Structure formats: C-alpha cells, structure tokens
C-alpha cells in the first residue's frame, strides 16, 4: 500500500528516492507520523519533499491517492506493519511498476530491507502496548497519546479535521526561486583554470618550511597569492525570433556562468554572427560593437561560447546579404571563421533538441563550420563542451581579411 503511494509520487515526477522512502518507513516503525492521516501527511512531506516549490504537486498527488482511502488508512493502523508493508503480488505488477522497482535498486534489495523493517516492528510492538506514546522526547509538552490506544480525532473516516493537503496552500511557491542552475554551475566549474595572481596574502606553508630549514631553523615566512579562477569567457547569445522558446534555459546558463566566472564578457547577436554584436538589447541598433573590435579587445586566451538554436535559412549563413535584418557585405560564415581564427577555443551550445539537428540544414552547416563542436544546452552537453574547450580547433585557411 505504501509502496503504491510511493510509486504514485514517482509517477508524478517528484524526485523521491529509496533512501527517503526507507526513512519514512523507519519513522513509521517508531510511531512517528501515525495515528491519523494529517500526521502521516506532514511526516511524509517532511521525509520525501525537499523543496517548497514541490509542496503543491505533493499535495495534489496525496489528494488523488488518498481520496476515498482514508478508511483504509484507519483500518490499516492496527495492522501496521503487515498490510502497509506487504507487497502486492510480484506478478501482478505492471511492466511500469516493475521498471520502477528495478530503478529503486532491484526487487531483492527492496524486499530485504522491508523484511528487516518488518522484523524490527514485531519485536517492538508485542502485546497490547501499541501506540503508547513514545514521545517523551518532545520538547513541546504535548503530543503524548492516550496509553489505552484510543485515537485522537474521533472515529476516523468521516468528519475529521480539515485536510491540510486539500487546501493547496503552496500553490504560489512555484517559480519564485533560481531554477536548476546548480547543475550548470557544477558543469561549468570544470573549466576552471586556477592560477595565483595578485597580492601575496596567503601563507605558503611548504615554502615557509623550506625557507626556514635553509635558514637553519630561523623562521622565514613566505607568502603567496590565493588561487583564483583565471579563465576568461566570451559568451555570445542569440536573441529574439525562434530563441524566445529557449529564453528560460539561456537565462539559467547565463546566471550560472555569471556566478562561476569572474571574467565573463557577453554580447548578443540575432540568428547568426555578422559584423556587429551588441551588449544591450534595447539599444541594439545604435550601440553596437563590431566583431573586429571584439577580436582586438579580447585576447586569444578567451574561451568563446556561442549560444543559439542555429535554426534559420541556409542563406543567412552562406550568402552575402542573407541576414534577415540588414544587408551584410560578407556572409556570416566568413565572420564565424574569423572569430574562430582568433578564439581558437570555441564551442556552440544549441538549446534545440539534438533529434532535430540532422533534419535542419542550417544546423548541419553550422555544426560543420564549428568543426563539429556543437553541443546541446544541457548538463551533459555543457560537460562535453567544456571538454572540447580545452583544446583549440585546427587553424583555418581563411585569408579574407575584413
């Protein structure tokens, strides 16, 4: 029964793990979160949900699962552990449920743990001593239960107290926080190049020992600069048009990159790189930076990351005047090669799913132009991209000077 509830949560894509499920069982076996459904609700939420923006989804799953089963919950109280922990017949499981069991570490492991819990349970509650409050640890003075085993809250079933989960109080909590940038940050972190630059303000312990020894034991303190992340990143982002669908993802990448790299420069372009980029989207028509200037300003050691869906008409890449916004003297392909020549450590991140890459001609062309260095804008993609950024691309025979 409980396992069933657990699979319901997984089906609703709540990130609950086996460890947390076992925590829940452990708690129940120690009489935490039993006695009525409200208490169980709170305890289950405490164990399983680690993010307030998921509270609302949890409430909904809880509601849909337990609606109409409140009576079952009460009946089962006396029967804990047997009924709660009893697994439905293994063969009766659907393929889906079987897959889930596998995902939770395999059938045997699960059974083993459950059996162990079951054992502990029978040892602890023999005779009529069930439900005697074990809450002496409670710091708040109440929460102790009637030792006769009478439930608080009436006979159960109908007319009980307000159900917390039905109120859906946490509806507003969604979307008020920084979304999923942690994974990006961790992925970006591997691009770090730690160097010692600046003021020497840290004690160099090894150096001091060596110098002191050389000084015949007289203390000779050596200082050195702290290690800092010295990697320089130039980020060029595609905005507008078809990129609007990927705004959220790009913002995540951007905010992760901002906090990870001290030397981060960013510019925007539309669809493809031509002779100009800009820094502020609302002033893009009169406040632009030319690409040759970009190349002059930022040294060769900058890592270039282009972000764009690369979805456009092939003319926009290959032809003069192909741009949708202005007449470009030279095709975009030439400009991107110039960028590559200077910033030889470069990659293209594409928020579009890689399934579409083969069927979109412009993506194929750009991928080729990028020497296959195009990756999906996902955690795995970024990891691969960072790996690729460590080596330069082979020099390009473009002689077309601007």
């Amino acid at each position, binding site marked *: 029964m409980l396992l069933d509830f657990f699979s319901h949560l997984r089906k609703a894509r709540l*990130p609950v*793990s086996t*460890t*947390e499920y076992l*925590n829940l069982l*452990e*708690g129940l076996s*120690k009489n*935490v*979160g039993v006695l009525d459904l409200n*208490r169980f609700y*709170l*305890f289950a939420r*405490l*164990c399983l*949900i*680690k*993010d*307030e923006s998921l*509270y609302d989804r949890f409430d909904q799953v809880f509601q849909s699962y337990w609606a109409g089963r409140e009576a079952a919950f009460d009946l089962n109280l006396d029967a804990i552990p047997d009924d709660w922990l009893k697994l439905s017949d293994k063969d009766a499981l659907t393929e889906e449920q079987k897959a889930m069991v596998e995902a939770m570490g395999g059938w045997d492991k699960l059974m083993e743990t459950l059996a162990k819990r079951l054992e502990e349970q029978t040892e602890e509650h023999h005779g009529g001593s069930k439900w005697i409050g*074990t*809450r002496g*640890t*409670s*710091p*708040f003075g109440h*929460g102790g239960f009637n030792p006769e085993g009478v439930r608080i809250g009436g006979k159960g079933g109908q007319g009980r107290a307000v159900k*917390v989960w039905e109120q859906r*109080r*946490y509806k507003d*909590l969604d979307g008020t*926080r*920084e979304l*999923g*940038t*942690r994974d990006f*940050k*961790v992925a970006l*972190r591997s691009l770090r190049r730690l160097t010692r630059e600046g003021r020497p303000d840290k*004690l160099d*312990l090894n150096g*001091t020992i060596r110098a*002191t020894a050389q000084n015949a034991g*007289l*203390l000779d303190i050596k200082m050195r600069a702290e290690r800092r992340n010295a990697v320089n990143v130039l980020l060029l982002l595609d905005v507008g048009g078809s990129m609007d669908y990927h705004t959220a993802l790009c913002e995540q990448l951007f905010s992760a990159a901002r906090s990870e790299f001290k030397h981060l420069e960013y510019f925007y372009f539309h669809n493809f790189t031509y002779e100009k980029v800009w820094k502020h989207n609302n002033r893009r028509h009169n406040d632009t930076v030319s690409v040759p200037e970009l190349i002059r300003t930022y040294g060769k050691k900058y890592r270039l990351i282009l972000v764009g869906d690369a979805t456009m008409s092939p003319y926009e890449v290959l032809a003069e005047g192909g741009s949708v916004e202005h007449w470009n003297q030279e095709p975009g392909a030439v400009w991107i090669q110039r960028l590559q020549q200077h910033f030889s450590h470069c990659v293209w991140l594409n928020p579009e799913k890689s399934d579409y890459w083969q069927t979109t001609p412009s993506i194929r062309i750009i991928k080729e132009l990028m020497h296959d260095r195009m990756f999906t804008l996902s955690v795995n993609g970024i990891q691969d991209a960072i790996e690729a950024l460590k080596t330069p691309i082979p020099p390009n025979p473009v002689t077309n000077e601007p």
Partner: protein
Amino acid sequence: MSNADYIITDELQQAVDAALTLERPLLVKGEPGTGKTQLAIEIAQRIDAPLFQWHVKSTTRANQGLYEYDAVSRLRDSQLGDERVKDISNYILHGVLWDAFTSDQRAVVLIDEIDKADIEFPNDLLQELDRMSFNVYETRETITAKQRPLVIITSNNEKELPDAFLRRCFFHYIEFPDKPTMEKIVAAHYPSIKQDLLKSAMDVFFDLREVPGLKKKPSTSELLDWLKLLIADDLPSEALGSDELRTVLPQMHGALLKNEQDVHLFERLIFLHKQRNR
C-alpha cells in the same frame, strides 16, 4: 526572546519531534523573519540542551566546523622554545561540531544560512552529518558523537543544495504566519496592546503584504518593531483607521518598509484605505 514569546505551529512542532526521534538533521527554509534561526535557540531552551551555533559566511569552509590545525602558532612557538610545541593537540582548534559531538548531554547544533557558503560546502559535510563522526588527521583520532545532536540547518534559498545532502535531511518550509497565528505571536510579545489598535495595525500589515510588486514584503520581526513604535507613541486606537492616518503612519513606516519605491506604494495604499473608511 524568552520561552513564551516563540509561537510554534503544529506542523513545525511535528517536524521537530520527528527530527528528534529519528535523529536526522532538519533543514528549515522560509521567508526572512519567520524565525528560522530562533527555532534552534528555542528548542535548545525547551529541551534544556546546550546550543552550538555555526553561522556560515561565504568564506566558511566545512573543515572549520570540525577543527583547524593552527600551524602558524606552532611554528612560532617552536621558535620561542615553548613546551607546548611537543604536543600537536595543543594546536588543534575545535570547531562547532567537535564541541557538539563531545558534549555529554545531547546538544542542539544550528548551522545558520548554509546557502551562503560555497556550492560544495554541504557536500563536504555529508559524512559528518550522516555518521556523526570524523577523523582528525593530525592526531589520528576519531571523534564520534556520544549522543547524536539535533542539527537544525537554515537556508535562504540563495543557492540550491545538492540532492545527496537533501536526501539525508528532513525538510520543513516555514510558512508566513496567517492572521490567527500572527495574533498569537503579537499577544506573546505585547500582551497589553490595545485590541482595536492591534486590529487596525494587522489590517494594514496584511494588506501591505498583499500589495503586488512590493520589493520587500514586511516580515514578522518588522511588524513587531512597528507595533513597538506604535505602542511607545501611545497612539489613540483610532489613529490607524481615521483621518489622521495619512499624517501619522509615514512617521513610523521606516520600521515596515525599507525601500523608497515601497514607501511610495504604501502611501497609495493608505490613501485607498482612507477612502474606503469614509
């Protein structure tokens, strides 16, 4: 704050009970000013346990909570021929968790604002919080908790915490108090406040929190400060709901609103309030 001042909701109480019974760390989140930090202090008082506080900053490293080896002092002492030099343990500085683990009584540990630290910080504490023991490399000791302390961790959502860390914690989100709870909280702090003054003040306060686009919503502690000012000035009870409203309130709003644009909004709200009460 004394015992009676801290109002704890049933939900939070159950969460604390569960954390105590199952000896698992309790991660507490919630709007600023909902008493996250106060919770640990309060629990320590109520179960009469020693409290160890660890306030995390952006430069805090996980090791500092365990111990630090003061090599520089030892080096200096060696130059002066100090006797203490011979025993390395003289230079091991105990951290918060060390003290909590070796406490004879069950302790309460507060790890405050864990999200302020580096992104890897929580991961570095996984083992220590799980097993409640750690090794001291310099003296080859293992420090194991005599009694597993109750660990309360607070977070303000500035950084996401790693999954592995979350799996090992219980999580509770402290909601902003609703009106009845808030009335209890206020009553605990100012038992002698005039009822009608309180009622108008609460109306203004909760209205204010509803105002869309407020940069910083006033929190419980701000309400309490504000009420303190109102009481200190001994305002007549009608002051908040009458014509005086507009002249009286702006003198006090500094306690509630900490942002110029918000003050602007507030003034508009008072104006509307006045119109409604006419």
